C-alpha cells in the first residue's frame, strides 16, 4: 500500500447524504477535483471509515496529482533527466497500475499523455481555459514504453509529463474501499471517486444499487439515459466525454485523449460504464473503450467485461452480460488486467525488458 506521506491539509468536511434508508449511512465531500462519496453499513461504522478514506485520498493526491506543484510526481517530473530516481510506494503503485493498463489495452490508455492534455488547454482553471482563442496544436504522445519502473525506482525522460487520469481515480477508490472495510471490521462499504466505484466488505442483500448516468452527480433517473444496477462486489467505472469539456477557438474539446493522435477521442460512444474486479481495471477499460471507438463493444466483449455503452445519439448497447433491465445484478468477472512491477525503459536502467 502507499507509503507514508506528510499531512499537509486539515481534515476535509464530509456532508451526510440521504438515500431513503436508515440501514446505510452515506457521506460525501469534494476531493481530487471531484466528489468522493462513501456508503456504509452498518451505519454506525461511518466515522472510522471516513478516516480511512481520507487517508487514502490524501496519499493518492500527494503522490500523483499533476495539478499540485508539491506532489511527488510534479517534483520528480521537474527533475527528470532520464536517470533512475527512488519514489514512494504510493507513487510506485500508481505508476505500476498505469503501466499495466497501458500494456493491457495495447496503449489505448497511456500515462504519457500529460503534455498532450496540457497542450489542448487542460492545464489551468476552466474559467481561464475559455478565455483562450488559440486552437491548440496536438502534441505527440511519447508512449508508455518510454518510461521505466523497477519496484520503487522510476526512470522518466526529460520533459515527459504523466497523467494518471485513466487509472488513478479507480485505483484510489480501490485503496479507499479496502482501507474503509478494514477499518470498520464488519459490514460493507462502497466508495466512489468521481463516479468510479469500488466495493469492500460485504454488500447489502441483493448488492449495492448504483445509478448509471453520464454524470456522476446525477441522482435521479432519466428514462433510458440512466439505469440502476446492483453491484454485489468488485467495481464499476464510467468514462464520459460529456464531462470536462471546454472550448478553444470555438472548438469543443474534452479530456479523453487518444494517444495515437494526441487529440480528444472522436468515437461513437459518449459514455461507457464497465464492471470489473477492481476499479482501476474498470476505469482503464471504460476509458479505452471511449478511445477504441467503433470497435469498443468487441474489445470489451473479447475481455468478457460487462459494459454499457451510450452513443452520442442516446443509443444504449450492453455487452458481456451487463443487465439490460433496470435493477439487474452485475456478475463481476475475475481480474483481467495483469499487474506489473518491473517495466524497464531504455536509458536509465541500461536495458529494456517487458514481462
Amino acid at each position, binding site marked *: 500500500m502507499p507509503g507514508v506521506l506528510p499531512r499537509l491539509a486539515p481534515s476535509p468536511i464530509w*456532508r*451526510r447524504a440521504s*438515500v*431513503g434508508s*436508515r*440501514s*446505510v*449511512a*452515506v*457521506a460525501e465531500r*469534494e476531493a481530487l*477535483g*471531484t*466528489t468522493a462519496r462513501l*456508503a456504509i*453499513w*452498518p*451505519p*454506525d461504522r*461511518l*466515522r472510522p471509515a471516513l478516516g480511512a478514506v481520507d487517508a487514502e485520498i490524501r496519499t493518492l493526491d500527494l503522490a500523483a496529482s499533476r495539478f499540485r506543484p508539491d506532489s511527488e510526481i510534479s517534483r520528480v517530473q521537474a527533475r527528470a533527466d532520464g536517470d533512475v530516481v527512488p519514489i514512494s510506494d504510493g507513487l510506485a503503485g500508481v505508476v505500476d497500475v498505469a503501466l499495466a493498463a497501458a500494456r493491457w489495452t495495447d496503449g489505448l490508455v497511456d500515462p504519457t499523455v500529460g503534455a498532450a492534455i496540457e497542450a489542448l488547454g487542460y492545464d489551468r482553471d*476552466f*474559467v481561464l*481555459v475559455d478565455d483562450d482563442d488559440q486552437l491548440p496544436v496536438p502534441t505527440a504522445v511519447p508512449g508508455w514504453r518510454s518510461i521505466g519502473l523497477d519496484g520503487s525506482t522510476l526512470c522518466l525522460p526529460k520533459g515527459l509529463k504523466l497523467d*494518471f487520469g*485513466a487509472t488513478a*481515480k479507480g485505483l484510489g477508490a480501490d485503496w479507499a474501499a479496502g482501507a474503509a472495510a478494514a477499518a470498520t471490521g464488519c*459490514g460493507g462499504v*462502497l466508495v*466512489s*471517486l*468521481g*463516479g468510479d466505484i469500488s466495493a469492500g466488505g460485504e454488500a*447489502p*442483500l*441483493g448488492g*449495492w*444499487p*448504483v*445509478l*448509471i*448516468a*453520464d*454524470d456522476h*452527480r*446525477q*441522482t435521479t433517473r432519466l428514462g433510458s439515459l440512466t439505469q440502476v444496477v446492483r453491484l454485489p462486489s468488485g467495481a*464499476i*467505472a464510467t468514462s464520459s466525454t*460529456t*464531462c*470536462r*469539456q471546454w472550448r478553444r477557438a470555438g472548438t*469543443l474539446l474534452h*479530456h*479523453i485523449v487518444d494517444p495515437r493522435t494526441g487529440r480528444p477521442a472522436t468515437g461513437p460512444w459518449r459514455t461507457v*460504464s464497465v464492471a470489473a474486479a477492481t476499479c482501476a481495471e474498470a*476505469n482503464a477499460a*471504460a*476509458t479505452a473503450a471511449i478511445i477504441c471507438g467503433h470497435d469498443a463493444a468487441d474489445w470489451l466483449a473479447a475481455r468478457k467485461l460487462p459494459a454499457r455503452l451510450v452513443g452520442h445519439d442516446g443509443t444504449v448497447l450492453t455487452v458481456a452480460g451487463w443487465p439490460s433491465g433496470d435493477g439487474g445484478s452485475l456478475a463481476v468477472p475475475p481480474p483481467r488486467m495483469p499487474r506489473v512491477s518491473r517495466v524497464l525503459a531504455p536509458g536509465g536502467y541500461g536495458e529494456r525488458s517487458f514481462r
Partner: protein
Amino acid sequence: MDQDYGAGRHRLPGYGDDQDYGGPRSAATTWNSRDQGVRRVRRMSNWTAAALVACVAVTTGYFAHAATVASQQAGSPGTVSTGQPGQPGTTAPGHKSTLTHPVVTSGGSGVTAGNGSSGSGGVGGNGSHGWDN
C-alpha cells in the same frame, strides 16, 4: 363415585360434596376426593413449572439481545444522523438489508464549460482541476 374405599380414611371437604354435605361420609369417598385433589395440585404445579421455565427463557433471550446491542453501540466511536460526521445523532439499524434506492452514481466526472445546464457538469466551487476519465 365415592364407593368401595377402605376403612380408616376420611374424606376431605371439597368439590363433589353437595349430595351428602353435612352427613356421615364413607372412607372410600373420602379417599377418592383426596386423590383427585392431589392430582389437581400436581397438574397445576406442572403447568406452573412449565410456565416459569418459558418465562425465564424469554427473559434471558431478551436481556441477551439487549446486552449485545448495547455493547455494539458502546464499541462504536460515533454515530452520525445529521450534520457533520462525529456529531451525536440517532443510531440507525445495523442489520443487513436490501436497499431500494441507489446510494451512488457511476458517471463521468469533471467540469463542463458554459452554464452547466446540460446536466453533465462537474464539480462546483474550486473544483476546476481533477482526476478524470
